[in-house]
Structures are given as C-alpha cells and as structure tokens.
C-alpha cells in the first residue's frame, strides 16, 4: 500500500473518522496509526476496553430460527414476530436500544399462541421434550420436567427456582382448567415465548478477578452470543451442554465450537442476513422504478438481483473460502434467466436455474460494486445518482459519513437538454463552494459507475454522449470505472477494516467504540496474514477473550450484594 495517496486516518479517535476527510481536504495534517503491539493470539489487545451489553431483542429471523430449533420448521412458519426497525445501519443496533410497546407485545402474544398450537401438532417432538408419560392432567412431576427442559431451551440457560414455579403454575392451571395435561404444555410454551428471557439476549456476566468493572459472560451467555452471531439461531441443547461443561471457557474451546457452528447451513444463512442489511438489499422489490423507462423492472428481477449478490458472496466466503476482497474485484458472477436476459445480455443458464458466468469483459464490471442489486438500490426511479452511489461506497466500504446538504441550497442542476451526461449536470456541485466540500468526495466515486443505468444495465453512452467513468479521489487516487474502483477498494486497508467494523456492529448490536477499535484493527491485520478469509476472521473474533468480556452494568454490584445477603432466597438454581 505504498502507493497510498492520502494520509492515514487515526481510527482510534472516534470523532476523527468523519471529520478527517474534510480536514485532509483542507490540507490539515492528519495523524497516523501506529500498529498496536502484537498480543498473544487469543488475548484482547492491552488497550481494549469492553462495553456494556444491553438487552438485545431477537431479530425476526433469530426468533423464527429459535422456534425452529426448539420445535420444527412448521412451528417457525406459524411464528409472526414483528418486523425489525433499523438504527445506524443495522436492525441489531435498534434491537439493543429500542423498547417494546403495546403493538409489539400484542404481536408477540399472538405469535406465541400460534407457535404453541403448531408445536402441539408435532406429537413426536412434544413427547421428546416431555420425556415422561403424564399420569393425568395434574401430573406435576411430569409438568416440572417439561418446564425445566423447555425453559432451558427457551431461555438458553437453566431456569431458577422462582421461574420454574411461575411457569409450572401456568401449566398446571391450564391443564386443570381444560382437564388436559397437554393444554398445560401448550400454555407453558405460550408463556415462555413471551418472556423477556426468551425475547432478549440477556448478558449479565460473572465477576472477573481483580477487575470489578469487567465481567466475563457466563458459559450459557457465551454460547448464546456465539450461536446467534454465527448462525442467527440459539444454541441447541448440545452446545448448551458443552457450555455448561466449561468447553467455551477457553479460546480453544470457543474456536472448536465456532468451527462447528460455521459448518452448519445456518451460518451461511446468517451471513446472507448480514450482507442483505450491510448492502441495503432488503425490500429491493419495493424500490420504485419508472415503468415507462424500465418496463423490465419487477419484483422477480429484484429478487434475482439480490440472490446474485448473495450467491457470489456465498461462493467467496463458503465454497472457496477465498480472499474476501474479491467482493470488490470478482470478474465472474451468478445469473438466472431474468438476469441473463434483462441485465447482462447473455444466454440464460442451460437447464434453467442459476449458473456461474464470466462477466462480459466489455461491461467492465467488478464484484458487487457493479452488481445490478447495488446499482439499482443506489439510483433514482428515473435516473442514476452519482451522489447516492458515491455516498454508499464511502459509508459502507470506507466507513465515512457525510453531513447533510446545508439548508437552503438551491439545487439547480442544468437540464439534460443542455448537459447530456450526469457528469456535466453535477459539475455545478463542484462550482459552488458550499457544495464542493462534500460532493468532491461523493460524486467522483458515483460517476465512476455511470456505465450502469438505474437498474444496472451496462451503457457506454448517455443521450448519445460517451460516458466518462474516470475519477480522481482523495481516498482512492485516480482510477477509471468499476474495475478501477474495485481494485482501489481491494487495495485499501480501510475497506477491510470497514467490513470488519460493520460485521461487529451487526454481531454485537452496537457501533464499535473507541475502546473496541484496537481489537478490530488487530483482527483485521490477522485476517490479512490469513489470506483475508472472512471465515477465519469470524473464528478469531469469537475465540478472542474480548468476545466474552463486557463492562459491568450499573446495578449488578448491588444485585449481587443483595444475593450474598440472602435477600433473594429462591433465585438460586433449583
């Protein structure tokens, strides 16, 4: 990276990230990052500072996968968890901040009732969960066994005595009322699925010797954090058993468990969920396009576009375990008939379905940055947008944000009759000083993708004028077109760090703090030494001590003191 043309940004200073771009443009001196000292492989960097772990509500996909793990795919299909809002780019960040309300609690109530009814339809699984033959509607011993087993799966830990009592109460009440043991089973499920201990990941941790401000996740909590991060699903009974046997207490144990989880198809699905959010591809079907200009635009085509991108990432990450930076540079992709015909202009895969193709060279595409999915999302209904596409590259691949346009700016782009190409039209951005500061950073990146129309079809001309896709940019230097942009991104340490930061945001439910950046820089460097394997990164993150270390919350000391004084009698394990 000796050819870097811009000063390095000190990412350890949180406010520097956005601000430095402008400071650099203004010619100010920018700091440089000194490599942190190399720690032992599994140790957190000396400068790592953990953060508190707020309650994180299961995202809809996680809720459904939890239901599928506990019961069946049929029960998961009956589940109707509410949609996930998003904050700072990820639904998991919203899930760690926002509270429930009447509508959401009602949704969860209705979902719990539906799931329980569907679960009761699977007699074999219910019998398996029971492990006993009820002697009658009032068989308290059998109900107790069920509540213990079911509760452990739902809460991802053993129930405490009070919890056992309360849910047993529900089961015996319902069984007695209906004079049917299984009505009791059903309403135990209804109740457990509405508990905050099911709906939220609860991470309280346990004390760390000589570090009262820090705590380590309990074994169960570690299993839960790891399983939801890597598979968007809960720990199954085997993983909970392993955790409770102490297997996850060591980096080696977590490494083994992570490798096991990553071998599951659920891990691919979880990574697809991450990339769908990261690349803003959810609901691509609803992206409005002018049907007069783009009659081929349809929800079907949108779904194919998203699937194309996820298939390429599947191929890089899982099938080939290749250098993740190929996401910026790959010269091959996957198409189905709609994509082949409407977008790429190549023959549809023989035999239907999906096929791998080499991207036609003359289209100059390069990885996902020139995928129709991304290009379509970051465009207007009737036109392309250099600003949207440029901001997307800056924000998602380089972790730089821009301030909003100043108020009262007169955006008078010349009409297309006098300025046939977008480059000519947005040139006014650079003439007006109040615009140029930001648009000089966003627009060139977007203009380099002008060879692709609002639904990502290649074009070499706009209104008869040849498109100029060259760019000169403060971060990337000079380049031409999508391939130039892809090569530039692949060559920047910051793009890999930005990907890692986004994965961490998604996986932990918060934007990384200043105290966590040293960890991510270290793991990025290790990933570089390891052929840029994303799989390898996931394993090294989960194995690292930092992954199971949190900051103590402000009430835990008082709570544990009251426990020690015996004030909470029945909260001990049964």
């Amino acid at each position, binding site marked *: 990276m000796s050819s870097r043309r811009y000063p390095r940004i000190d990412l350890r200073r949180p406010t520097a990230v956005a601000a430095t771009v402008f400071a650099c443009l203004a010619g100010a001196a920018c700091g440089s990052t000194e490599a942190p000292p190399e720690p032992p492989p599994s140790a957190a960097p000396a400068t790592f500072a953990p953060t508190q772990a707020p309650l994180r509500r299961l995202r809809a996909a996680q809720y459904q996968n939890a239901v599928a793990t506990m019961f069946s795919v049929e029960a998961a299909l009956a589940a109707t968890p509410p949609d996930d809002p998003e904050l700072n780019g990820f639904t998991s960040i919203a899930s760690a901040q926002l509270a429930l309300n009447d*509508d959401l609690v009602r949704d969860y109530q209705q979902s719990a009732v539906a799931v329980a009814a569907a679960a009761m339809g699977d007699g074999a699984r219910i019998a398996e969960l029971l492990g006993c033959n009820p002697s009658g509607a009032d068989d308290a011993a059998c109900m107790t066994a069920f509540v213990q087993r079911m509760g452990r799966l739902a809460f991802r830990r053993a129930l405490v005595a009070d919890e056992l009592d309360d849910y047993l109460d529900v089961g015996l009440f319902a069984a007695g009322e209906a004079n049917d043991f299984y009505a009791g089973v059903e309403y135990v499920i209804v109740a457990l699925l509405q508990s905050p201990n099911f709906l939220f990941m609860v991470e309280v941790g346990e004390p760390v010797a000589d570090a009262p401000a820090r705590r380590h996740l309990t074994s169960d909590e570690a299993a839960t954090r790891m399983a939801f991060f890597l598979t968007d699903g809960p720990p199954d009974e085997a993983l909970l058993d392993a955790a409770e046997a102490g297997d996850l207490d060591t980096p080696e144990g977590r490494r083994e468990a992570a490798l096991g989880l990553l071998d599951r198809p659920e891990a691919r699905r979880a990574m697809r969920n991450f990339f769908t959010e990261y690349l803003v591809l959810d609901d691509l079907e609803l992206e409005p396009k002018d049907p007069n200009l783009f009659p081929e635009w349809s929800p079907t085509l949108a779904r194919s576009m998203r699937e194309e991108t996820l298939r390429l990432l599947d191929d890089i990450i899982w099938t080939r375990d290749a250098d993740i930076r190929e996401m910026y540079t790959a010269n091959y992709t996957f198409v189905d008939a709609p994509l082949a015909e409407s977008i790429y202009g190549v023959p549809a895969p023989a035999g239907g379905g999906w096929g791998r193709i080499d991207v036609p060279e003359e289209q100059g595409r390069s990885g996902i940055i020139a995928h129709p999915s991304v290009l379509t999302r970051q465009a207007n209904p009737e036109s392309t947008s250099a600003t949207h596409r440029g901001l997307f590259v800056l924000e998602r691949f380089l972790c730089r944000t821009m301030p909003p346009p100043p108020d009262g700016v007169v955006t008078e782009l010349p009409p297309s009759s006098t300025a046939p190409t977008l480059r000519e039209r947005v040139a006014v951005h650079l003439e007006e000083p109040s615009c140029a500061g930001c648009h000089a950073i966003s627009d060139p990146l977007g203009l380099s993708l002008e060879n692709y129309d609002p639904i990502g079809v290649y074009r070499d001309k706009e209104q008869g004028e040849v498109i100029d896709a060259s760019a000169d940019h403060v971060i990337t230097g000079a380049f031409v077109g999508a391939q130039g942009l892809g090569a530039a991104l692949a060559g920047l340490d910051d793009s890999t760090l930005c990907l890692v930061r986004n994965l961490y945001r998604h996986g932990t439910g918060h934007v990384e703090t200043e105290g966590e950046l040293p960890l991510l820089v270290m793991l990025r460097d290790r990933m570089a030494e390891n052929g840029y394997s994303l799989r390898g990164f996931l394993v090294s993150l989960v194995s690292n001590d930092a992954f199971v270390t949190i900051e103590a919350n402000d009430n835990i000391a008082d709570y544990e003191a009251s426990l020690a004084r015996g004030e909470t009698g029945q909260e001990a394990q049964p």
Partner: protein
Amino acid sequence: MSRRKLLSELTLPRRTLLRGAVGGAAVAVALPPLEAMLNENGDALANGDPLPRRFMTWVFGTGCRLEHWTPATTGSNYELTSELAPLAPVKGDMTVLTNFRNYVAGRRGHHDGVAGIFSCHPFIQLDPMGAPYASKFGGPSIDQVVADIIGNDTYVRSLQVGVSKRHLQNQGPTLATISHRGPDQPLYAERDPGALYDQLFMSFTPADDPTAARRVKALDAVIQDAQRLKRRISTNDRNRVDAHLESLFQVQKQLLAIPPDCAFPMKPDVEPYMPDGAEPLAEINAAMAQLVVMAFSCDLTRVCSYMFTGPSGGAQFYMLPPEEFPEHNTNKDYSHADHHNVSHINLPYEQDFIHRSTIVSMENLSYLLDLMKNTDDGAASLLDNSCVLAASDVAEGWAHSEVSMPLIVAGGAGGRLKRDVGHYRSPDEEPVHNVSLACVKSVLPDVDDVTELGSNSGNYNGFTNTPCSAVFEG
C-alpha cells in the same frame, strides 16, 4: 351527504356483542357514548361528564410551495389558495396558521421539523464512528402525552396509522414515525388497512373462548419474570423493561376487554400496490380514514397519529401524469418519482410537481376531516369533539425552511378551539410549539408544558410555553 347515510355505507348492520366479564375479572374498557348513555340534549354523558375529546396529529412530508399555500388575507373571510382549495368542505372548521417558526431547528432538515412540531423536544442525534446517520425523538410526542392520560380507558391507548409505505426508515425513529412514547419507544404506524381492521375490530376475545384465562395466566408469569429480570440489568435496560411491563399489562387488559356495543365496519379490501408498483395513496387513505373514524366513533381509542406521507419520504404521486403540465413542454414524467428527491430540484417543473402533490395531500386530509365532520358524536360531530393538528416537517422542501411550514388546526375539541379565525398570520414568528401546546391543552386543560426543556430552553430562543391564543379558546 347526510351523516346517517355516510355511516350506513361504512357499516354492517348493528350487532350486539356486549357480554359479561371473562372469568369474573374486572374489565376497564369504556363503552362508546351511545344515545342511552347521553343526556337529553345529546351534548354530554348522562352523568354530566362531557363527551370524550379526540386528539390527532397528521403529517404530510417535505412541505409545500408557499406561494401557492399562503392565503393573501387573514381572518375568517380569507380565500383558499390553490393548495388549500381541497379543504373547502371544512374551511369553517379549521384555522390556517402561517409565519410560525420552528425554534428546535438548525441541525438537520426534516428531523428538526418533525421533532419540533410533534414533540417540542430537540431530537437526539446518533452519529457515531462513521456509521449511518440516525436520530431519535428527544421526548414523547404530543399524541403520546395525551394518550398517557386519556388513552388508558380505551381498548387501544392510541392508534398510529400511515398511508405511504415509502417513508424513510433508515435514519432512525425520528423520520420513521411521529408517535414516540420516549426516545427509545417509537410507535410505528400500521400501513395495511386490513391489518388495522383486524387489530381494532377482530381482536376481541370471543365470549366463549376458554383459552382467555390461560393466556391471562401466561402473561402473569411473564410479568413476574420481567420484574425479576429488572433487578440485575442496567438502569437504562430497566426503563426498557418497564415499558415492556406496561405493555404486558395493557395486552392483558385487552384480552379481557368487552367489544363495544357498536356497529363494526366491513373489512377494507385495498391492494397495497398497484400493478405497476405504485401505491394507491388515495384508496389506502380512504380506508384508513374510515377505520380511524370508526375507532373514534366506537371509542376504541381517543388518540391517533396519521402519517399520510413521511418526512423526507419517497412517496409516489401516480395520479400526477405529465400530461397535466403542458406549459412546461417537457418529457419528464414524475408520476413514479421519489417525492423527496424531486423536492430538492429547484426548477420550475419539479417545484410545480411539488405544488401539485401538495394539492393531492390536502385532498386526502380533506377526505379525513370531512368524514369526521359528517360523523355524529352525540348531538355534535366527531370533528366538533376533536382536535386535529396537521403539519409538515418543513415549509419548502428544497430549502428545509423552518418558518411557515404548513400548519392547520382543525376541529372544535368540544368547544376549546376557536372555529371562526380562518387564516391567522403570526406577526412575529411565534413558536410552532405554542400551537402544539394549544392542541394538547384543548383536550387536556391541565397540561402547561410540553417541552420539558428546563434549563436547556435558553438554547432555543422563542420557547414561551404559551398556548397559541389564535386557536385556543381556553
């Protein structure tokens, strides 16, 4: 159109669903103000209590064209401008307020306006570490201030409805909804009329449902669980679990609620999208308006927020084809364009499109207000007993301007709102928050402050916490 006829078009034959309490449990859900419950004149309840007042906030996104919005003269005899013309049927029931200023401003367009008008709190910026920008409301929105007090006696504490689904969802709760119980408790709008119908009219537990008591019992255990969980989590999380607990109690109460003795409407049947992908804005608006009016009329709720289009949203105005703009001699067709995108293009054709879209928004507001005006509520109309604050987040979208954003107060709030003002133009850029406060006071006379700014108020010159006397009768 007579009131009776309109209602009968909306409703099925009256059916009686009144029944006793489930499992002997007490039920605290109010019945609608039926004639039997009213006094002889129909202007109060039989026990002398006034009829319930209803409160609504209504928003359309991204402002108007002031030159086509602002009436030339003030007073009750003002002439409706082209953008206000659709409101002619309710002209005598509303006040148009101009030259008010949003003093919670200057940080981020759209966020400033929607938070300022609808919560009177500066919003909270979340912009960490190069992650995408987002913000939250800084305090409860005024509809929730009201719902906290008058919402607890009804089946649903408050309704949140929306029409355009192309609202901005990726900049945090501030732009995603106008209803917030607090910074961490946004209440998102329902945009599917069928789902809203089910929530309002089909979710009552049938009288003979044997599972109701079991579901209540299950919630008892969950409530115990949540209270135990609170002991070992952070203070911030305790607040979140408290919100969860409040809602658990509310849902438990709903499980035991008796359906009101009220003629329920038919389930609306509106496709969410047109075949070409456009949203049927007017059709969804009509269905939503009818459901909200029925919910008010049956006293299922007394509070509603109504997001016609979102601040900075990408609504499409499919009904505005290019043929209607021959004077521009242009081939541009914005019938599928993103409303907010177009608003920032300060060229004649595009701004004319914004002008025309504002007319469409007012047609849809007019439909709602007219429906309220034509729905009986005792001896008066529903509009007579309601306060509706309709506004946009900016005055003109291209400039993010914060003075003279569209601002209309409609209804009588049972006599507490002035009805004969017409157009009032503030001589000195009064705070929009005085209008927000006046609206809250029209249903809750005892509330004197909706800003909660305390010592921060010095940062926002203009806060007076004086209810706008132009609309507030007292």
